[in-house]
């Protein structure tokens, strides 16, 4: 039932992370720990703006500290390939305010 709570099932999968400062980082999850620290491989940031489409900034291998993580989403590759990022416009996400 409420057993598989960790991120084990997402290891080696492409994930989409939303950080507390409102960034969206997409990459392959290589590792994680109790504090939700993440190791992301082949990662890039998706920068949203209302003036232009989504810009992708290559980051490579990154560690994100758990404190700064909001959401970890499993990226559905098929849904993602159907997205037209260049025409997607949106305000950047707000930062988390505790």
């Amino acid at each position, binding site marked *: *039932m*409420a*057993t*598989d*709570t*960790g*991120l084990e099932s*997402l290891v080696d999968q492409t994930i*989409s992370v*939303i950080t*507390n400062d*409102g960034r*969206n980082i997409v990459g392959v999850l290589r590792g994680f720990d109790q504090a*939700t620290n993440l190791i992301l491989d082949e990662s890039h940031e*998706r920068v*949203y703006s209302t003036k232009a489409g989504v810009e992708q900034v290559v980051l490579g291998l990154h560690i994100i500290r*758990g*404190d700064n*993580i*909001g*959401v*970890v*989403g*499993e*990226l*559905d590759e098929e*849904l*993602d390939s159907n*997205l037209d990022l260049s025409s*997607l416009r*949106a*305000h950047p*996400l*707000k*930062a*988390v*305010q*505790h």
Partner: protein
Amino acid sequence: MYLRPGLSRGISTDTWFESCVGEEGRKESLSWIGKQRELFFSYFKELVGKEVTVELKNDLAITGILHSVDQYLNIKLENTRVVDEAKYPHMLSVKNCFIRGSVVRYVQLPPDGVDVDILHDATRREARGA
């Protein structure tokens, strides 16, 4: 364990609490705040399989089927959709997600998901240190 007369569901607050201290086996060392968290942890475990909406501290609201909860109240949702997809297209290709407990502002529950009497009773007992 005993069942209180008049409760519609066959679960008492004792079962909730025992189910979680049983796992941890350290009832004495829990602080008051720790106990509160155990209580809500047990409560959320009861809601697994139901549809909830989680509102985050960045105003994003995500609806999905509650898959699991852990001791930090981290939440896993399945079959998710963001409440205002036009405004927040950031998670369009995400269908399952893990939400860190620390960024949760509210969890909106299904109407039948909350038994106010049981919860009232349990929180009061916790506050008394029972």
